[in-house]
């Protein structure tokens, strides 16, 4: 009996609740505690929340139709009515960027989510079961990693065709090996801890061990990796759209806006200026968050 329990007798209900604080919840709490200590991670976090809010609410607040041309204001520069000016069809660039922010962010988040989940699963299987399974899986991951960055995505797009869904698929595929490697490493390290052996001896199933003990332990590196990967996913996805291999205009995806706007740089530089700035802000937010988090979680890296 701990001192705390003696001082304040818990009713059964409360006690159950306390006991039920799952490993995941504990791991997340620990994560949040460390997060709060790192200023840059907090700044990045707030910036991400702000951008998500803008992406969710923004489209309802903008007053211009993003598809309706108005040739009377074609190429008009930034003004009080049109903060980011108007494009070659006289559409309001600000409204388009606000809409595009959501699309670009969605692609970055979804591709990281899908690719990340697949990578986590593969990494855990590989690390937990080891031996032949591990060897085969990791060789396959090496093959995927042999294609630098955007090349694999391009190759896949060439088969699948250029569209928003296919960009998500292509980018998520090169997320898989990155996550698989990290998760495999952490799983290996956790698997050999003594208490895992003890759990096994007590007859806990593999699934239970993986979900209750291994996964919570490797949550932090996964979150760091996810944040940094979202940043590069956004860069890749908007890059694909920019060269016409991703989301197609007239969609206001930020890369697609740039792709359209580049043809009119001689007439109106503002069409390309602002969408790029917003992409940078978006990527910056996830980079800062991921960087700060890594420093907070790994004191060795911080000098």
């Amino acid at each position, binding site marked *: 009996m701990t001192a705390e329990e003696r001082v304040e007798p818990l009713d059964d209900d409360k006690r159950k609740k306390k006991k039920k604080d799952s490993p995941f919840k504990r791991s997340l709490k620990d994560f949040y505690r460390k997060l709060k200590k790192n200023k840059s991670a907090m700044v990045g976090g707030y910036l991400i929340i702000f951008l998500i809010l803008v992406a969710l609410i923004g489209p309802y607040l903008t007053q211009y139709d993003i598809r309706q041309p108005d040739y009377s204001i074609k190429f008009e520069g930034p003004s009080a009515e049109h903060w980011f000016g108007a494009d070659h069809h006289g559409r309001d660039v600000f409204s388009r960027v606000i809409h595009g922010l959501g699309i670009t962010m969605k692609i970055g988040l979804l591709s990281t989510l899908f690719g990340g989940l697949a990578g986590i699963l593969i990494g855990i299987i590989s690390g937990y079961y080891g031996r032949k399974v591990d060897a085969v899986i990791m*060789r396959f991951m090496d093959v995927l990693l*042999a294609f*630098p960055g955007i*090349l694999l995505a*391009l190759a896949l797009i060439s088969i699948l065709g250029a569209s928003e869904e296919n960009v998500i698929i292509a980018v998520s595929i090169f997320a898989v090996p990155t996550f698989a490697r990290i998760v495999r490493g952490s799983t290996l390290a956790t698997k050999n801890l003594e208490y895992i052996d003890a759990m096994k001896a007590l007859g806990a199933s593999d699934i239970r061990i993986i979900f209750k003990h291994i996964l919570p332990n490797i949550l932090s590196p996964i979150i760091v990796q996810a944040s940094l990967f979202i940043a590069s996913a956004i860069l890749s996805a*908007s890059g694909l759209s920019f060269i016409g291999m991703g989301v197609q205009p007239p969609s206001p995806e930020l890369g697609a806006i*740039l792709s359209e706007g580049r043809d009119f740089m001689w007439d109106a530089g503002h069409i*390309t200026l602002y969408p790029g700035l917003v992409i940078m802000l978006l*990527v910056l937010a996830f980079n800062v968050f991921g960087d700060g988090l890594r420093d907070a979680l790994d004191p060795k890296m911080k000098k």
Partner: protein
Amino acid sequence: MFQFIVRRLLQLIPVLLGVTILVFSLMHLTPGNPAHIIAGESAPADTIKQIEERLGLNDPIPVQYFNFLKDAIMLDFGNSWRTSLEVSEELWPKFWVTFELAVYSTIFSIFIGLIAGIISAVRQYSFSDVSIMLVALFGLSMPNFWLGLMLMQWFAINLGWVPATGWGTPQQVVLPVITLGTMGAAVVARMTRSSMLDVISQDYIRTARAKGLKESIVIYRHALKNALIPVVTVVGLQFGSLLAGAVLTESVFAINGMGKLVIDRILARDFPVVQAAVLVIAVVFVFVNLLVDISYKFLNKRIDLD
């Protein structure tokens, strides 16, 4: 050391086989009959049959793969479906343009990144350190194709200092190299800084100071040489991704390199060319990584403390 190299080379074999299988399947996963793509949808059945015969499309898939592999090792990638030229004939001139761009950009990122990283580390927490690291963070977060557009807007369109497009003359080289090299420079700067800071706290740096050496000699002769070792890895990995990342830069500046070739031929559904380009970049990437690994091992040999 020799054993290590041999072992790493052997490890490459399954990876390279996997790469070729993946690239080979590209074509076979593509919807549509290649013969139709070559001859057009309305081509007579005879012609289609002839083409299928010539390309060996009726052979079993493993046989087709084996032929593909055999030819690829000899750098024979067949003929383009669009221009009927030999693929390698089309590919190599473009490859060298992209290679040049990647090499210059790597040199740019090493040069800028090292200087910035050293200044940052030596004056840790100073104004210059904070500003350099801030700039590096932006460099890391900037889409490079957008940076290219902005540079073009300013220096080519507004100021007219350099031509907006093309490749070859020194003036034409400047903007694409900055565009492609900026992210690398940011990565190198950050790596150099953290590596330098790590080295500066080592015992042998204290020894160097205790010998009565000037601080500049302590930093440049004793710290830098050790700090560069991890930077080598980063630079090597950078080079590979620059080769692939050149696609975007080439598109911005209308440079007639491999990236542009790939995009054009994807749109034209000219798969042998796409296949060959992807394969070549992946193989170069794999070998560059191997070189990095070996040189890291070599440089680090002395440092391996028991």
